[in-house]
């Protein structure tokens, strides 16, 4: 059996490297479109300042992009290095969107990013704009395919288990492609990226305005960021609500846990604005509830019920017992594929195979299940409530905070007097980290909320790992933390340095604070 320590360390390493990777991804996604907007204005008006804006924000974008690429390769390696059984078990489905991402999107993004930086003097204005647009399209398509892969982990449609090959196999590619979870996640995630890009430009522009330098440059940047950011944050909130809805259909468990809904309430269920969840007694010690709201968000109706945690646990208990039969039949079939009785037995319980595999955390032979072990496995099917409950609420609160900021920034941009509102500029500056925090919280809810599964209902996390030694994991985890810490320091140093230098770093002679060593 796989040691729990190995599983925990593998999870920790994946979590650390994935969350670190996502420090850089949303800014890349958002900045590509902001660069497209700035350069389009340049091509349309012919005003050099817009070209300078594209180049300067592009420079900061490049500093960020380098680490996005660096840490992205880790993610592709890691399924193979640390999640070998996962890779075997679902590679038939999961590998395809990753490979197509490379072919369709990442090649496009990475090839044109080279021309974006180096092609200014060799391309016509329109050609260069086309390059920038293709880079943005590539970046966004890349996110699409990754989220199709991730969406399948949340809602594994279009695939079936084969006992001959001992893995999940694709049966309907279109179902995987148009998985509602994937589509909702895609629009929510890229919009969050757009917000991140907008906040980045808004904050740094506000910094220049507060210092009274590069005023024209900063004002133009601020206005673009305010408009783009406002549209994006509206889209994040509306589409986030949409992902709440699909979660309700495919992953009731995650929804119940992040809402701390222990009981199945009569429809439409209320929304716990604030609660103190008590995992032991399966109740909330304290809660402020807004009636009806949860039922409407989760089911888009007034009469459909949302199952509570206790009800889900009871269902899962049945599924684990049925899944146990599937595991027993499968193991017999692996030894003798011709056994017709076992085949019939397996087909009958196949849908619950994943639930049966939950017992493998405790038993080599699942037939030896005791009431205590069954109880543990049932408890495992619900992720811990409090971290999800609070992460989700914090993310939403940050979302509305940013809605307020971008709303104000847009209103005063339209009035044209935002530069005379120090409170607005200061808020924009201080809120710089907020989109990153929201993104990380969002991913935490999505992935921690999927536990105990890597593929929801199909493959438990504890079975997904590679059979490595615990020492290997300690070693690699230490290596990643060491590399990533140094890289973060270097990246932040350069980012702060160039953000402070401002457009003067382009060496055009048109701005304050011209790059000293020019």
């Amino acid at each position, binding site marked *: 059996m796989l040691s729990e320590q190995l599983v925990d360390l593998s999870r920790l390493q994946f979590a650390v490297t994935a969350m670190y990777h996502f420090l850089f991804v949303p800014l890349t996604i958002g900045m590509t479109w902001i660069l497209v907007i700035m350069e389009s204005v340049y091509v349309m008006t012919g005003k050099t300042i817009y070209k300078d804006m594209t180049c300067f924000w592009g420079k900061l974008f490049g500093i960020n992009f380098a680490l996005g690429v*660096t840490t992205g390769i880790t993610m592709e390696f890691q399924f193979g290095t640390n999640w070998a059984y996962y890779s*075997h078990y679902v590679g038939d489905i999961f590998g395809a969107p990753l490979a197509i991402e490379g072919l369709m999107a990442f090649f496009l993004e990475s090839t044109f990013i080279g*021309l974006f930086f180096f092609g200014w003097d060799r391309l016509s204005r329109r050609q260069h704009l086309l390059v920038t647009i293709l880079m943005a399209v590539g970046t966004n398509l890349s996110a699409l395919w990754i989220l199709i892969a991730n969406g399948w982990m949340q809602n594994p449609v279009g695939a079936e288990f084969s006992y001959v090959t001992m893995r999940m196999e694709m049966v309907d590619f279109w179902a995987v492609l148009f998985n509602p979870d994937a589509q909702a996640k895609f629009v929510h995630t890229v919009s969050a990226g757009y917000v991140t890009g907008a906040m980045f430009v808004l904050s740094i522009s506000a910094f220049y305005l507060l210092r009274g330098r590069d005023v024209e440059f900063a004002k133009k940047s601020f206005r673009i960021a305010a408009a783009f950011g406002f549209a994006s944050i509206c889209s994040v909130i509306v589409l986030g609500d949409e992902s709440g809805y699909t979660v309700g259909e495919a992953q009731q468990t995650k929804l119940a846990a992040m809402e701390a809904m222990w009981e199945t309430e009569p429809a439409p269920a209320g929304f716990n604005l604030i609660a103190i969840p008590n995992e032991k007694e399966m109740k909330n010690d304290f809660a402020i509830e807004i009636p009806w709201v949860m039922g409407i968000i989760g089911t888009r109706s007034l009469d459909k019920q949302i199952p509570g945690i206790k009800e889900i646990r009871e269902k899962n208990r049945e599924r684990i017992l049925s899944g146990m039969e599937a595991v027993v039949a499968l193991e017999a079939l692996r030894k003798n594929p011709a056994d017709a009785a076992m085949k019939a037995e397996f087909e009958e319980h196949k849908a619950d195979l994943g639930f049966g595999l939950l017992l493998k955390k405790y038993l080599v032979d699942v037939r030896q299940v005791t009431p205590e072990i069954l109880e543990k496995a049932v408890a495992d099917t619900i992720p811990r409530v409090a971290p999800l409950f609070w992460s989700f609420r914090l993310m939403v609160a940050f979302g509305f905070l940013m809605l307020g900021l971008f709303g104000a920034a847009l209103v005063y941009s339209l009035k044209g007097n935002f530069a005379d509102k120090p409170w607005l500029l200061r808020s924009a500056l201080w809120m710089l980290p907020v989109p990153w925090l929201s993104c990380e919280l969002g991913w935490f809810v999505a992935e921690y909320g999927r536990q105990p599964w890597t593929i929801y209902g199909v493959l438990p996390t504890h079975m997904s790992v590679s059979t490595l030694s615990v020492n290997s994991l300690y070693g690699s985890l230490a290596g990643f933390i060491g590399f990533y810490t140094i890289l973060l320091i270097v990246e932040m140093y350069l980012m702060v340095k160039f953000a402070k230098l401002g457009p003067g770093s382009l060496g055009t002679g048109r701005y304050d604070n011209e790059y000293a060593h020019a």
Partner: protein
Amino acid sequence: MLDYPSLKIIWWLLVGVLLIGFAIMDGHDMGVGTLLPFVGRDDVERRIVINTVGPHWDGNQVWFITGGGAIFAAWPLVYATAFSGFYWAMLAVLWALFFRPVGFDYRSKIDNPTWRNTWDWGLFIGGAVPPLIFGVAFGNLFLGVPFQFADNLMSTYTGTFWALLNPFALLCGVVSTAMITFHGAIYLMHRTDGAVYARSRTAMMLFGGLLLLSFSVAGLWLWQGIDGYTITSAVTPESLPNPLDKTVVRQAGAWLANYERYPATMALPAIAYAGILIAMLLAAQGTTLAAFVASSFAILGIIGTAGASLFPFIMPSSSDPRASLTVWDSVSSQLTLNIMLWATVIFMPIIIAYTSWAYKVMAGKVTAAYIRENEHAAY
């Protein structure tokens, strides 16, 4: 939909195409990185070297990422077994690759000799380590890798990292490093002039010679000194993949059996030799673009030779030979192979088209004048 046996063969060829594409495209970047500290003696020269690949390395690296993704999608068991089995080797490749994006983008952003020199050596590591390790890994495939499967196909690697560093595998590492550095040197000749050109020419001769020598020795060693693997049960290409459903034995000379069985495969080592020699000759004369094409053929010949010798094996198991992974039993489902084939057929020509356009836009020698004019924009 194509039949399963054809798809299995096509995907073996396509993975080969992707690996060869990776070695040709990302390979010349890595060769340039390996040569960087040696052919560039001052900051301007080093910036010249870096900027020959500056606009392209990122796109080229996607050959590697796509190759990895394609192996994941088409050969999930190979991806799972090789990446987890070669754990420390893979991490070494990964960590070496860390130096490239940041090295390229950050190096010239700060005007400090220590800073720049550090990143130059980082780019050296990012260029030299991956080809070396891939060569060593390939070498170990010929020797067999100690892994086995449980009943549920969970793989376990029973060797150590140090066991991978045996003499034959290290020789394969030399072949791979020489091949990539040779190729990179020719690319550098094509894109530079003056002192950098002259030093690249020397490196080209040096690594071309080393490649001829090491490739020949590795071939002789494989012929005389290494037992191959062969499937002894009936091969059923149309059956559903199950790597435990066969018997395999080790046999002297088995790695050369394909050349007898399919004499056309002899063309591959012939292309390798011809490619190396013609590339050296053309490069020595200064016909650098044609030399680059020739060295690309040399890469095709060398990787093709390795693949054809192993066929149908991908990753033989030394500790449980029947668990060896082959083109017949490590593949994805017929549907997935088919979808991936279409995706490749559609997108590969488009990728080649816009990559070519990008090279055309940036064509020409990178000179000291270019670096001076683009002080703030160039790498």
